Every structure is written in C-alpha cells, then in structure tokens.
C-alpha cells in the first residue's frame, strides 16, 4: 500500500484526507494554477503569437514591450521576446523535469540500498553523499559542463548528477526507520528476497517524503539550469532557455532592461510555484518538517 493509496479509498480519491489537506493549502493551489498557466503558455503560446522565436528583424531591434505585436518587446536581433520566452520555457521546464526524474531515481536507489543494507555499504554510500555535498554545486556543475559538451540532454544529466544527494539522505533516513517494522520482518520470514523487500515492501511506504523532495528538486533544477546557462555553459543558443536569455542581458541593462527583467521573472514564478506546491504536499502527506 502506498502512502497515497492508504489515504485514498478505492473510489472517490478526491475526497481523501490528503487531497482535502492539499486543497486547503492556498499557496499550493496558487502554485498549481501558476504552473498550469505557464505550461499551457509554453505549449500553445508559440503557435498563437505572430512571430517565430527565431525570426530575426534587425529593423525592430530593442523594441520595448507593447510595441505593435511585440507584447514583451524584442531582443538585440529583433527577435520577439514573448515567443522566445515561451520556447525557452519548454526547454527549461523539460530539462528541470527530466533532471528531477533522474536525480530522484539515483537518490532513491542510493537511499534505499544504504538505508536497508546499512553496515559498511550504507556508510560508504552516505559518505559519498557527504562528499558530493562538500562541493559548492555551481563549481561542480561548471567543471562538468566545461568537460562534457552541453547538449540539452547532457545539461539534464549534469544537473541530476549534482542534485540527487538531498533525496538520497531523506530516503535513507526513512528506510532506516522502516527497516525495523513488523511488515519487513514478516517479509523476511516469508523468505522474500532483499530486493523484493527493499523495492516492493519498503519503498511504497516511503513515497510521501520522496514526492515532496522530488517537487522541491524541480524548483532546484530550474535554478541550476538557469545559473549555468546564464554563465554560458548550459543550454547553447540558438535554442533559448530562461537562463541563456539572460546571458547577454546585463550589457543592455540600461537601454533595454526588459531583456533582463522578463526571463528572470519567469524563472522566479516557476521556482516559487514548485516551492509552494512542495510545501503543500509536505502538509498533505504528513512529511516531517525538518527542512526549510
């Protein structure tokens, strides 16, 4: 039984305690609404706008927002900022989503094995987690990004490789406490294999904290991608991402401030929304609040 299914009956899951608690968390609902809106805008926006994100119009360079059909203005090449913003959103959100999947997978695997096996295997795995956490994440990210050619897939992998540790710690602590419970003992007495007990018996009971951590990891991944793309080592132009839209913005800060303000605002809105949702899920799924 998963934590979710335990709270939800066979029918009318939307009336369960978990859902009720989540829907009474106003900030979390606001987060869901904003992410839904942002996603819809990124999916359909580029088709509805009059300009393509790659269409260069040198006569219309540096148009401020609300000039003609350029609702959010244009960039130094006269490309439509609104069209680029939504295309960039596709890249940034997809990279963050898959980075979350990959890092949650790595973190869960490491955490479950370390927590269940314990002993020297557990110690070695958790010290490795500590080792990765000792590097300032941006230093490690940039060194890796410089070493490996940064395609979108590679950026996803690099972001995941530098952000799985938090999940691993949470899962390890959870599994370590679940290991001593009766149902695990029962599983052992039934002669179930270690892998079966770890992934089929213990893991479903640790889903709550994993879901919360995964949601917060999306927020974290959006920021990390933005950081390295802003510094020029992440997603490479002409493919737009929220981070690389900001890359050249500083030199035009005086004459064209919208180039810096708009993509940054999009990043802040997306990250805030995921943090709100994570907070709501933590309340709804009854996850201990020992992190910020």
């Amino acid at each position, binding site marked *: 039984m998963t934590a979710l299914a335990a709270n939800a009956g066979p029918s009318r899951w939307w009336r369960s305690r978990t859902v009720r608690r989540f829907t009474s968390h106003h*900030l979390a609902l606001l987060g869901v609404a904003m992410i839904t809106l942002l996603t819809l805008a990124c999916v359909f926006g580029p088709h509805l706008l009059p300009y393509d994100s790659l269409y260069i119009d040198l006569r219309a360079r540096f148009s401020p927002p609300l000039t003609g059909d350029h609702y959010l203005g244009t960039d130094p090449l006269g490309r439509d900022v609104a069209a680029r913003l939504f295309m960039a959103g596709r890249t940034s959100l997809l990279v963050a989503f898959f980075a979350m999947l990959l890092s949650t997978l790595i973190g869960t695997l490491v955490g479950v094995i370390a927590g269940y096996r314990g002993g020297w295997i557990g110690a070695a795995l958790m*010290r*490795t987690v*500590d*080792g*990765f*956490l*000792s*590097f*300032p*994440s*941006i*230093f*490690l990210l*940039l*060194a*890796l990004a*410089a*070493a*490996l050619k940064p395609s979108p897939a590679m950026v996803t992998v690099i972001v995941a490789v530098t952000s799985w540790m938090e999940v691993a710690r949470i899962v390890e602590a959870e599994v370590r406490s679940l290991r001593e419970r009766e149902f695990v003992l029962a599983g052992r007495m039934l002669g179930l294999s270690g892998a079966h007990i770890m992934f089929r018996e213990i893991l479903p009971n640790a889903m709550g904290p994993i879901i919360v951590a995964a949601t917060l990891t999306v*927020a974290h991944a959006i*920021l990390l991608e*933005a*950081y390295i793309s*802003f*510094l020029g*080592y992440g997603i490479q132009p002409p493919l737009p991402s929220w981070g690389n839209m*900001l890359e050249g*913005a*500083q030199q035009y*800060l*005086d004459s064209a*401030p919208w180039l*810096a*303000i708009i993509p*940054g605002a999009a*990043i*802040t809105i997306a*990250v*805030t929304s995921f*943090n*709100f949702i994570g*907070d709501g899920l933590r309340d709804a799924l009854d996850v201990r609040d020992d992190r*910020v």
Partner: protein
Amino acid sequence: MRGFLLNRLSQSLILLLIVSVIGFLVLNLLPGGPLAQFGLDPGMTQDDLDRLKEQLGLNRPLLMQYFDWAWRLLQGDWGHSFRDGTPVLAVIGRHVPATLLLMGTSTAIAIAIGTWIGIRGATHRYSLFDHMATIGAMVALSIPTFWFGLVGIYIFSLQLGWLPAGNMYTIGDGSVLNYLHHLILPSIVLSLVHVAIWSRYMRTATLDAISQDFVKTARAKGLSERRVIMKHVVGNALLPMITLAGVQLPSILTGALVTETVFTWPGMGRLFLDSLGYSDYPVVMGLLMFSAILVILGNLIADIAVAIVDPRIRLG
C-alpha cells in the same frame, strides 16, 4: 572532548579522501585530461604528446595516477596556471580575500536580519508578520541570485545612481569608504537567500527553546518576558545555528560565484569563470578542490565550536 575531537577529525579526513576521488574523476573527464595544457600548444605533435604521456606516467593504471596526484596535492604542489605559469595555490590565494570579504559581510547581514525575523516570527506565531515572513522566505529562496543582482543594479545604480554597479573599488581611490560603498549591493544580493534560510531555522529553533522547562522556570521566577526571550531563549536557539552556518557554506560559495560574476568582483568565483574561459584547468581543478576543502574545514570548525559552547554534545 579529546574523544570527540579525534572522532570528528577522522570523519573529516575520510570526507577529504572521498572528495579527492570525486575531484580526480572530474579531472579525468576534462577534455584532454591532465595533458590539455600541452594539447593547446600548436608546436606539439601527437608524437610529442605520446612521449609526454609516457614521461608523466599517464599510461599507468588510474589508481597509481590517483595516489600520485593526491600526494602532490598534500605536498602543496597544485600545478601551475596555463595562463602565466604561476603556482595554482598562489593564484587562488590572491583571490581568496575578496571572496571572504563578500561572504563575511553577507553572512553578517543574513545572521542579523534572519535572527530578528526568526525570533519575531516565533514569539508572534501565526501573526500577520509570521505569515508574511514565511511566504517571503519561500519567494526569496526562489529568486535566482544573479537576477536579483541585475535588478539591484538596475534600480540602485542605473536609475537612482546611489551605488556602484560593480568592481571592488574605484581605481585611484583606495579609501575604506570607497570599498564599503562597493560592498553594499553585492553583499545584500548574496545575503537574500541566507536571510530566508536563517530566519526559517531560527524560528524553529526559537519555538523549540520556548517550550523547554528552563523557560517555564525563568518565567516562574518572575522575569520579564523580554528578559526571558533575550537571555534564555535566544541563547539556546542560537546554538544549532552554529552548525547551520557550517552546513550553509557550499551554498554561500555558490552564491558568491554568481554574485561575483554580476558585480565583476575579483574573487574566487570570478577566477573560476575566467579560468574556465581560458581552459586553464589546473586553476579550475585547484578551485574545485580548494572550495571543497574549505567547506569540510568550515563544518569541522562549526562542530568544534558547538562542542565547546554546548557540553551536552562533547559528553553525550
């Protein structure tokens, strides 16, 4: 205390070992590996490179190479910069003070404001202030540092003209006031995230302390509420914050790198990016290892400091 120190020290050494293995793996991932330096030289033929590889022992098993590399690291031989041949440690040493100044100032700001918000939130729990602080902290944690820096420059430098947009001092003017003037904006930008984190932890720690028996005793003695909070609650709530300061080090360093880039601040972060741009891998690797060692050292110092202040830790 001695047992605690030995135990804690050995943990740090193990961590150092793991960190060096990760660093060595990254080094071998870099294009050209340790030979990248010579690969850039147009006078080098493939034959020369192969001979160098042989001479430098790069065709030996990876494990042997690792021990060799780690041994040189321990002896303080961190290689030379590709750019001008200066020893890596000397290059890093030149850039450390600027980063420490920025980090120190912004940490002081974060502690002062964060502690105040945290205590006020805990003593006025569920008040409007508490709710606003909670939401504010979540938003602050979501703002990309570099973007906050750009917005700060736009408002305070370009529009209002109050603060300089970058650099550490005006050339030709080395006065302390000039340094301080340049320090204000970047240190505030860097402190935003940590004000948020610090205030959240301080709120929790204060709430924990308030519910303790010694607070009831203090109140029962008839002390004023203000005195109870300032003397008995805050003192105890600040204890776990020492550990937090150590744990936060990597994130402050990450923030410093980004802030230094936006404000052309001549610190380690700026150096890291410049070195990446020049493919100056010895310096890049040096900074990577140096920052990790700094973090391990910082955590060790924080833990020892807590143990000195709080006898429960070193005895329990």
